[in-house]
Each structure stands twice: as C-alpha cells, then as structure tokens.
C-alpha cells in the first residue's frame, strides 16, 4: 500500500466514536437517555416552566387544598396533577422536587466517586499496608446496610442538604473504592504500566494519566447505578422524615406528605411524585445497563 492509499483511509477511529456507535445501537437505551435528558432539563428549568412557584406563599391559596387532578382554581389556573393539602400545584411541586432530588443524587455520587476513586487507586497502586488499611475500612463500611449508616449519621448530624450529601457520600464511596481497586489491580500488572515506570515517569502521572483512564469504564457503569440508588436513598430518608428540611422538598418528601391521604382516596398527592421518581430511576438504569454492555470488554465484538 502506498502512503497515499493510507492517507485515503477513513478518519481516525477514536475510542469515543466507537463508544457512541455502540451505545446508540439499542433503542431501549436511546429511550432511557431521552427520558433522562427530559428529566434533567425539567429539573434545571423548573423555575421558568413550572405553572406556579410552590414555595412562594403569595401564590398559594389554602382553599385550593387537596383538589383532584384537572381541577380549576379560583384564579382560573388548571391543576393538571391536583394539589396537596396546602393548595400547592403537584406538577410544580414535582418539578421543584426533581431539582432537589437530582442535585442531591448527582452531587453526592460525584463526590463519592472522587473520594472512592482516589482511595481505590491509591490502594491498588501502592499495595502493602496502605491497601490493607483502606480496604478493611471499605469492608467494615459495606458490612452495614446503607440505610442504617445514613440513619445513624443523620441522627447525629441533623437535617440539611449538606448533611444528607455527607451521609450519602459516606454510604457510597466504599462501592467506588472497591470497584476501582479491582480494575486497577488488573491494569497495574499490564506491561504499559511497567513501561511507564521504566521511562521514570512520576507516580502521580502514572496513576492519573495511565492507570485511571483505563479503570474508567466500570466506574462509569457503577456511577450510573449509584446515582439512581442515591436518589432512591435520599427519597427514603426524606420519606422517613430524616432527610431534607420541609423548605427544600424533594420527591421523597412529597410522597411522604401525601401518604396520610392515600387511604382516603386522595391518591394523587403521593402517586405522581412516586411515578416521577420511578421514571427517573428507570431511565438512569436503562442508560447504565447499556453502558455496562458497551464498556464490558468481554462482550465486545
């Protein structure tokens, strides 16, 4: 082959391009991604697209309390998903609730990812007593149920957005640490790491430029699953009354508010926030499943 013929070959196939092609091969995953994008956009733009600001007391009317879906208010506004006992529009409440739930879920998972990833990488790369110490802490952490650890922490720390993020990070970092350590142990023994050592590159450069990028695929998968689990855990804690304060309602708190009215037939107060929570988590998991399939080297063609 001449060099001209070589230059004529198609463009460089970057790993990213290959990844995108594989990812969009599944219709279910596309649906999940579209749903997730929609949810995220709603959460971001809630103040502009919600029919009502449910926490602005001037916009609320106690007379509109507990209206079924589709009712009209005195001011002529339609409550498509009904209202809660304070006369708040459920649709607006869900939009604002998504905002809190997603922010807490993504924020806590990202923070846990960074802490867990660093701990796992350090454990795998340096080995010895450092590894034993870190991994035993992880083992102890994982031997307690997540909800128990979070409950104890919140009972000690009290309520608040920052407190619940701390509790979620404390629960989740161990999963990341264990995942990244397993992958890094395999990658560390590969010859390209030995080659980097032989080239006298610094430890920090080897860990972050050579080891870390090759450990990312399983981390991305675990991350999507754990974002969903963080959102669900936060909803559970809020439902139990230990999570977010009433001034920062999340989906879990909305569900808890309507719980008392479920048996009296006023289903919408709990039901629609529940559906929103379910939809969000299903979408994240669909994306996560496809990521797992695409990034698993054993399933690659």
């Amino acid at each position, binding site marked *: 082959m001449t060099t001209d013929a070589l230059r004529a070959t198609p463009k460089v196939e970057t790993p990213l391009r290959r990844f995108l092609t594989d990812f969009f091969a599944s219709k279910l995953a596309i649906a999940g991604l579209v749903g997730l994008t929609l949810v995220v956009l709603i959460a971001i733009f809630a103040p502009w697209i919600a029919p009502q600001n449910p926490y602005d007391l001037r916009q609320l009317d106690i007379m509109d309390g507990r209206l079924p879906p589709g009712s009209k208010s005195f001011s002529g506004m339609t409550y498509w998903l009904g209202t809660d006992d304070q006369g708040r529009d459920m649709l607006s409440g869900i939009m604002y609730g998504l905002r809190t739930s997603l922010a807490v879920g993504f924020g806590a998972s990202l923070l846990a990812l960074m802490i867990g990833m660093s701990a796992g990488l350090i454990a795998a790369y340096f080995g010895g007593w450092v590894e034993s110490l870190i991994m035993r802490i992880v083992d102890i952490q994982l031997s307690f149920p997540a909800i128990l650890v979070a409950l104890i922490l919140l009972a000690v720390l009290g309520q608040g957005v920052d407190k619940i993020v701390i509790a979620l990070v404390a629960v989740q970092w161990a999963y990341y640490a264990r995942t990244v350590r397993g992958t890094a142990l395999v990658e560390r023994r590969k010859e*390209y790491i*030995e*080659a980097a050592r032989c080239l006298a590159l610094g430890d920090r450069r080897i860990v972050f430029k050579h080891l870390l990028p*090759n450990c990312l695929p399983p981390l991305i998968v675990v991350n999507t699953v754990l974002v969903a689990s963080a959102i669900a855990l936060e909803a559970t804690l809020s439902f139990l009354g230990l999570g977010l304060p009433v001034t920062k309602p999340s989906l879990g708190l909305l569900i808890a508010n309507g719980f008392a009215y479920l048996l009296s037939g006023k289903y919408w107060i709990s039901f629609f926030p529940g559906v929103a929570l379910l939809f969000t988590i299903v979408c994240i998991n669909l994306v996560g499943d496809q990521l797992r399939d695409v990034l698993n080297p054993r399933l690659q063609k």
Partner: protein
Amino acid sequence: MLEPMIQLANVSRRFAKRLDVAARIANWFGAGLKDEIVHAVDRVDLEVRQGEVVGLVGESGCGKSTLGRIVAGILPPSEGTRAWHGKAIDTLPAAEARQAELKIQMIFQDPFASLNPRLRVTDIVAEAPVAHGIVKGSEREAYVDDLLRRVGLDPSLKRRYPHQFSGGQRARIGIARALAVKPEFMVCDEAVAALDVSIQAQVLNLFMDLRADLGLTYLFISHDLGVVEHLSDRVVIMYLGRFVEIAATEDLFQRPNHPYTQALLRGIPRLDARKQAFEPVQGEIPSPLNPPPGCHFHPRCKHAMERCRVEQPDLKPIAPGHWSACHLNG
C-alpha cells in the same frame, strides 16, 4: 579493560506470599503453615560490556523475565547491587539515578498489553522525552516523526490509537517509545515471541540496525535458541533462578558443557539432521516454591551423582570466557 556498562552483583529476587490472619490463627492450633517464598532469581552475577549483545536463555518460569525487570529497574532486587558504569544506582543522587534509569530501557513481550490503549501513538512516544525535558514541546512533533521513521512506521499514522495497528507495528511503536529517551542499553524481554515468524525477522533486523546506528547494547531474553544464536555475542543459560552456563555464542553452541545446555541444544530442530530423533529434556521444570536441594537440575540430569543432590555447584571457569556450574567439571 573498560568497566562493564551494567553489572549485577549477587542479585536475588524473592516473591513471598505471606500468611494471612486466618492462616496465622490456624498455626496457633498447630496447622504448621509457612510463608510461600519463590526464589525467582537466586544470587546471580551478570556483567554486560558496552556494545555487547548478551542472550539470556531458559525455560518458562526460570526467572529470566524477573531478571530482565531487575536490570531495567522496574523491580527492585531483594538483595544485591546493580551498577551502571561502575556506580551503584541506588547510591546515586536522585537526578543522576533517574538519568541512569533512562539510559536503560525495556522492550516488552506483549505488543498488545505494552501500549496504553487510551493514548495516541504520538502521545505514547512523546510523553517521557517531554516530561524529562529531552525535547521541547515545540519540537515534539518533529521528534516523534523522526523516531517513527527510524523504526519503519509512517509518521502520518501517529494520530491513531494502538488498536488500529498490527502486532508488528505495535512492536515498532514500543521500540520507538523506548528510543525516545535516548537509551544506551535495551532489555528485550521475549520481544519477538508474540509475533509471526516473518515479522520476527523484520523486528530482529530492526534491532540490529539500531545497534549499528545508535551503538546500543542489548540484553536479549528469549526461550528461542535459534534467535539467540543469530543475535548474541555471549549467551547466559538460566535454570530455576540460577545461571548454569555462560559462554561466547559460538563456543556455547559448539562445545556446550552443562548437561542442561546440552539437552537444550539437542532440542533445536535442524535442517541437516532430519532423521535424528529429538531428545527432549526429561521431566518438568521443578516448582520454584520447593526447588530440589544441591544442583537444581539433578532430578532431570542423566549424569546426576550423589554429590549433585547435596552440594550446589558454583559457576567455575572451564575455558577462557566460558563458565559452567556442574560437578562433572570437578
């Protein structure tokens, strides 16, 4: 005489699997478990002089890759010293020690695992020389082009990723990466074993061209005696972590002294001896966890005597430049 370029003195490398807590508790009850220790390399001395090509030959599991990694500075030895131009590397100041380490580079066996799959070829080759200030950032692309041309690759492919190359091309990328830090000494660990035979010849020729152009010195690790005979000035035969014979290549192939070397040479298929039946070395290589006492080779040796079972033979000169570790030499 010139000082050897690289010198290993009394170097050992042990790998230990320590008892875990459960096993230690079991020992309180008299389980009698012990740490498992593998002597991958057992008190060896090696000298390589400037411009030489030394072949290191042995069966799988004899410790030759471990020794190669010790020479290249990837694994620290458990005991013994490693000297570069007569100076022990671990006693040098950090900056000088790094300079010495850069002069010793390694070519790896697996052309797939030895390149970082997330980096483009240009980054793989240019990372170390830029990080160590050997080239300026502005001259980096020209430097990479030059190196790729030198190893026989088209520089227009440098924006590609390793998975887009064939095995032989990847081997060349690995060589370019090592050459980028201007080494003087190369450890080639089974560098062609994973390649097709036709590609093997091309890569071996590349090694020899580089030796002529850049004055490189090689430690060439292989299980393939044919390759070693073709390339080396001197051959070291290794068995279960120890050297059993060292000689100039021609001397070794004409007059092998150690029974193990003799057995290895009889195993080479040759065109002129088609009717001769092959005599493989009897038995398996013993477990390095529990090596036989005395001469490690005695359970497989036709000439084994009582003395071989008890006393470890030393490496002794039997002719100028020819060393062998066998009790048959007296």
